[in-house]
C-alpha cells in the first residue's frame, strides 16, 4: 500500500535500524522497505507476504520473502529472532489485532507499527460532512477498502496500555509526510510507533 509522501515512514524506520540487525517486515509487499534497509542500513531482512504477485516481485527484488498469512500468527518463527518486526500500514487490515501485536513482540525485541490515524482532522471533516473519509492514508472507498478496523492514536495507545506494551517512541506525520509534534491526534495522518515489552 502506498499513501502519503513516497513513504516518509520508511525514512523513519530506516533511521531506527542499525547495521547487521535482523528485521522482519510483515506484509512486505514487493520488499521495497527491506530492499532499502538492506542496501542503506546493512540490515539482514526477511519479509512475510500473502499475495502471489507481491511474493514474485519480492523474489525478483532479491528479498528473503516467505509466503504466508500473518493472520495465522508467526508460528515457526522462534522467540526473539529479530531486532525489529515491522508492520507498516497493515494493522488496520488485520482481524487478530492483539494476538498479532503479541506475536510481533514474541519473535522480535521491538515492534515497529505504522497506521493511518482515523482522527486526523481531514477524516473528521469528512465524517462531519456525512461521508466516510478518503484520503492519502485512507485511499479507499468504504465498499472496497481492505481496512477492517478504524482507530485513532488515542485508541491505539489505550490498547498498548491494556496489553502492557511499552511505547518507546512515537512519530506522527501529516499527509505531506511532515512531522507533527503538537495536537498529534488531530493534525497527524499517519502514526509510527516503536513498541517493546
Amino acid at each position, binding site marked *: 500500500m502506498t499513501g502519503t509522501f513516497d513513504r516518509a515512514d520508511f525514512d523513519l524506520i530506516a533511521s531506527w535500524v542499525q547495521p547487521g540487525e535482523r528485521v522482519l517486515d510483515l506484509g512486505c509487499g514487493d520488499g521495497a522497505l527491506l530492499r532499502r534497509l538492506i542496501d542503506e542500513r546493512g540490515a539482514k531482512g526477511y519479509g512475510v507476504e500473502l499475495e502471489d504477485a507481491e511474493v*514474485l516481485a*519480492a*523474489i525478483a527484488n532479491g528479498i528473503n520473502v516467505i509466503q504466508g498469512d500473518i493472520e495465522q500468527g508467526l508460528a515457526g518463527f522462534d522467540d526473539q529472532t529479530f531486532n525489529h518486526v515491522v508492520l507498516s500500514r497493515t494493522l488496520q487490515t488485520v482481524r487478530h489485532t492483539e494476538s498479532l501485536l503479541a506475536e510481533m513482540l514474541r519473535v522480535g525485541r521491538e515492534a515497529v507499527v505504522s497506521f493511518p490515524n482515523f482522527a486526523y482532522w481531514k477524516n473528521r471533516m469528512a465524517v462531519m460532512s456525512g461521508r466516510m473519509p478518503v484520503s492519502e492514508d485512507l485511499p479507499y472507498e468504504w465498499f472496497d477498502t481492505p481496512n477492517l478496523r478504524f482507530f485513532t492514536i488515542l485508541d491505539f495507545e489505550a490498547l498498548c496500555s491494556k496489553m502492557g506494551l511499552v511505547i518507546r517512541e512515537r512519530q506522527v506525520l501529516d499527509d505531506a509526510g511532515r512531522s507533527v509534534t503538537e495536537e498529534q491526534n488531530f493534525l497527524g495522518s499517519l502514526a509510527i510507533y516503536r513498541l517493546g515489552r
Partner: protein
Amino acid sequence: MSDVGTVSAQIAHFDAPLRLKGGGVLPACDLVYETYGTLNAAKSNAILVCHALSGHHHVAGRSVENPANVGWWDNIVGPGRPLDTERFFIVGVNNLGGCHGSTGPASSNPATGKPWGADFPVVTVEDWVEAQARLADHLGIDAWAAVMGGSLGGMQALQWTLSHPQRIRHALVIAATPKLTAENIAFNDVARQAILTDPDFHGGHFYEHGVRPLRGLRLARMLGHITYLSDDQMAEKFGRRLRTGAGSYGFDVEFEIESYLRYQGDKFAGVFDANTYLRMTKALDYFDPAHDHGDDLARALARARAGFLVVAFSTDWRFSPERSREIVHALVHNGQDVAYAEIESAHGHDSFLMDDPHYHAIVAAYLKRITL
C-alpha cells in the same frame, strides 16, 4: 520460447571406489548424464537438476535415439524458459542405483560377472551427492550456480548445501521435505512389500531367472501414483465415472480411476527396475539431515552457505507445505538467505512437474538474480 532440441546422453566413468553411507563400497561406477546450454569460460553458470524417485538424466529435449522421448522436466528447461539455456549450463544425471544407464542393480557386479541384483548396496541421498560431486569434477565445475530438484530431487539439492557448502551457490528445494513422516514411510513400505513378495522377485536376483516382478512393481507404482495426486484432482479427472455405462458387480476394471491406475502401473512396470525402486524408496526413508544433530534441523542446516528457494504446493499431501516451512524456519532461525513460495495448485505432489505460469515465474525470477 522453445525446447532444447535433440539431445544425446553421455557417460562418465569413475574408477575410484565410492564409500557409501550404508557401509558398502562401489569399486567403480558409471554415471549417465545430459547437458543443455553452454558452460561459460568461468564455469560459473552450471545448474544441476536432480531427479526424483522415477526420474533420470533425460531432463529436457528430445532423445536422439527416440524423438518421441521428451525429457521429464522439459517445460522448465530451454531458451527463454525458467532454466534458461541461453544463460545457464544445465546438467541432468541418472543417480547411482538407477536403471537408465548409471551403475545400478542391473549392472554387472565385477566380483561375479553377473548382475548385482540384491547385492547392489542401498544408496542414500548423501551417496548420490558424492557421486554428483565427482561428475562436477569431471565437468570442471568447482561450484554449481544452483542445484535444483523436486521431491527426492529437492532433498539432493538440500544435501548439496550440507555435504559441499562451498560448491553450491543456490539450492532450489521444491515439493520436498527435511524428512519423511511415518505415513510417508508406511506408503513406501507397502510399495516395497508388493515387490519383495512377488514370486518373480527371487530375492532380487530375478535377472538370472529371466523374469521380472511385474506384478509387484505395478502395485508399487499404483500405490505411489495415488499419493502423487490430490483428492480434488482425482474427483475432477475421474470422479466415479464407469468405463461402461453400468456396474458389472464383479472385479474387472470398472471405474475410470481403476483403468488409469492400472495403465500407469503397467507402463511403469514395463520400463523400470524393481531393485532400483526398492533403493529409491529407501533413500527417501533414510533422508534426515537433522538426525545427527539432535533432531535440530536448524543446527543441521547451519553449515549451509547457499541461498535457498523453497517451493511447496497447496494440495501436496505427500510432502505438504508444512514440511517445506520447517526448512524455511530453520534457515530463518540461522539468519540464512531463503525465499519461500507456496503455490496454489490442484495437482498434488506432481504439481512440481506442471507448467504452472506463476510457479515458473517464481523459479525464473529467482534464477535471474543469480550473478554469473
